[in-house]
């Protein structure tokens, strides 16, 4: 069965893909197409959803819908960037540990374990606060707390593959080790890593929203978590300020998870349903 056929068999994955596609379009094109400014006050503060503001206005009279549309970009950007950085760290550590084994493996496993021992969310808060809140510090913080599971997975894959004949053959024929890792082993280990990476994007978006909710977001960029956090004091009176940005987060994270499961079904038929939980 082809990749696409297997993927398409998972109806949830198809729905997820469609939703994700729309969100990505919004993220890419809103700032290009729209001349609106999500920070600009357009009317009375705390107007309920209605004709003037479809999803209501916030405490400064800004349009919630505009905020959500513009927020898509930053939420997705942070999710993807963090996952990429996290995967770079995780795959590097895991690949080196799994491929070389011995004391290198020992040391790297200890380091990985150590990072798993640190309470991750408090650690993320600490990192963002120390590096001062901003796009970079948030990406770094999320990557630093999400790489260990990726490293473990990568290590397991590399350990198995290391003993396979084609790798042994490459080693014996004198191919350089970095070349073997990148050219021979990685392509064979990539499927589960892609699935895990896609789920890391979801985790990263959730983490970013929680950090922003606690007031640790980038102040120059509107994000969904920030919108909820900024309106927390009035959420009893103005439910629309928390409900709509929250729905945006849920749809995105849900869509990514569904797509991740579909990818898993398509890429790792033998691992069906396994990688969903980290």
């Amino acid at each position, binding site marked *: 069965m082809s990749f696409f056929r297997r993927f398409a068999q998972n109806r949830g994955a198809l729905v997820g893909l469609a939703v994700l596609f729309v969100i990505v379009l919004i993220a890419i094109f809103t700032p290009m197409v729209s001349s609106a*400014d999500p*920070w*600009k*006050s357009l009317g009375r*503060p*705390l107007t309920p959803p209605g004709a003037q503001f479809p999803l209501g206005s916030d*405490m*400064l*009279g800004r349009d919630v819908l505009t905020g959500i549309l513009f927020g898509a970009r930053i939420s997705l950007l942070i999710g993807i960037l963090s996952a990429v950085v996290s995967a770079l760290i995780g795959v590097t550590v895991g690949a080196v540990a799994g491929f070389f084994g011995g004391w290198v493996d020992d040391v790297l496993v200890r380091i990985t374990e150590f990072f798993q021992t640190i309470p991750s969310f408090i650690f993320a808060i600490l990192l963002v*606060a120390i590096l*001062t*809140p*901003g796009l970079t510090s948030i990406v770094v913080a999320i990557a630093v707390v999400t790489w260990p599971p990726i490293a473990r997975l990568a290590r397991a894959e590399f350990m198995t593959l290391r003993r396979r004949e084609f790798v042994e053959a490459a080693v014996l024929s004198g191919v350089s080790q970095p070349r073997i890792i990148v050219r021979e082993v990685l392509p064979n280990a990539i499927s589960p890593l892609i699935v895990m990476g896609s789920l890391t994007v979801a985790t990263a978006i959730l983490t970013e929203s929680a950090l922003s909710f*606690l*007031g*640790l*977001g*980038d*102040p*120059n960029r509107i994000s969904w978590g920030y919108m909820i*956090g*900024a*309106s*927390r*004091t*009035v*959420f*009893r*009176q103005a439910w629309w300020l928390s409900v709509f940005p929250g729905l945006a987060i849920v749809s995105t994270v849900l869509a990514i998870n569904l797509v991740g499961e579909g990818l898993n079904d398509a890429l790792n038929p033998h691992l069906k349903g396994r990688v969903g939980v980290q």
Partner: protein
Amino acid sequence: MGLYRTMAIAAVTLAGVMAGSLSPHPLGAGTAHAEPMQGGTLNSTLWPEPPGIIIGVNLNAPTLLPATKMFEGLLTYDFNLSPEPVLAKSWEVSEDGLTYTFHLRDDVKWHDGEPFTSEDVVYTLTEFIPEVHARSRPTFARAEVTAPDDYTVVLTLKEPYGPMIRSFDAIGAPMMPAHIYKGTDIRNNPANRAPVGTGPFKFSEWKSGEYIHLVKNDDYYLENRPYLDEIYYRFIPDSASRALALELGQVQLATQNDIELVDVDRLEAMPNLEVTTKGWEWGAPISWLEMNVRREPFDDVRFRKAVMYALDHEFIRDNIFFGWAAIPTGPIHSSSPFYTDDVVTYPYDQEKAKALLDEMGLTPDANGVRAKIGLLGLPYGELWDRLSQYIKQSLGEVGIEVTLEASDVAGWGSRIANWDVDMSTTYLTTLSDPALGVARSYITENQKQGVLFTNTSGYSNPEVDRLFAAAASEPNPDKRMEMYHEVQKIIADEVALAWLVELQWPTVHSANLKNVVRNGLGPNDNFAEAYFESE
């Protein structure tokens, strides 16, 4: 988040018993109608939980609210900041302004039963305050303190000092028991956790994370006072929760930043609650946008004026502070006796702002940007975040591109203190006298790198320095007044700081709770006269 906004800035004091009279003087909100009731429990919000409850060792707002019920000063101040007696029953100031003589009450006892005498006053002013009280230290360093007898204290100054008479409230000079503190390590005295004062309420219990409990002082020197049996200061970490507790009647008092301003109108409309903004005259907080004049383009007064014109102060007052603020005209708060509105003002006018920027040669580039600057907003919660966002938006409209810089309290304070910032927002109490709370932000001498709440903007004008110095030691009140008017004109014209609003902290209380705010010290009064109306 709303957790940290309450940190900041001082507040106020004590007491409020008129000399020789036992009747309450209902001056402010909470005017008495029905019969005062003896007894009752007052529950008040308090946030954040204070680090300690000894004034001087700590000066946080949440320290002062409970501490001013237990400790008293020699004097207190009415809404016009005129002195009224507390522990001193009368006082004289010599013609030349160099000698202050206080006659103490002879019927005051400490909570442990020891009598209160002039020895305690001398100890407080010459040992306690110089050791721990960062704000009053310089004031009392000007005086020599002696005690001719047990109930008389004399302060002798080398030169007249205008603010001196306004420095004897329970916050500026809380009387401390010499028999407990003398010769000890003040900061680590065990009594810091179980305070012994002279006030109408005694310390009972501090349950961490929950409340501070004070009980009535049965031996209080005023007969039949206090009315209340006990006060609980309850730590409720979330402002929405505090508002709900008020609505439900679970607490009867909240003040300063405890209630989000967006909520206040709603609470005020409720029949069981009352709101007053009086009682912060002593503190007189002003919020401003500080521009670092050591850097370009802030060194050019035209740029600072342009910023003032570009900001719609009415919008800020109405939509960010929800009407619980006033528009300042300069460095001195409008409730101060030294205030004048006869200064240059800056009504909202984007065209004027642009014209000034053009004149400076700051013309728009292809993207309409004339200048790029950073803004470090006060990290005290969402209201201040919205203020920063508004400033960014408004200055952007005249071509000044603002980047918001995020920070926590420590980072914010550190960068401002070290002059490592373009623009920042803050608010500061301007205190009972311009020499105490205003001059510090403008005089050249007070540019002290590394120290917060000094002249961190770098503004400097020899004439301003001269006027502030002369006014502080001018014994003639009319001449002082003239000098302060003059200084306001200069500073407003040069936009030393871009003043944003005078904060009007609402005190929200149950309608049947009376005498909450009865003088310039507001909720930091000693509450000897506060009572619940009998049903």
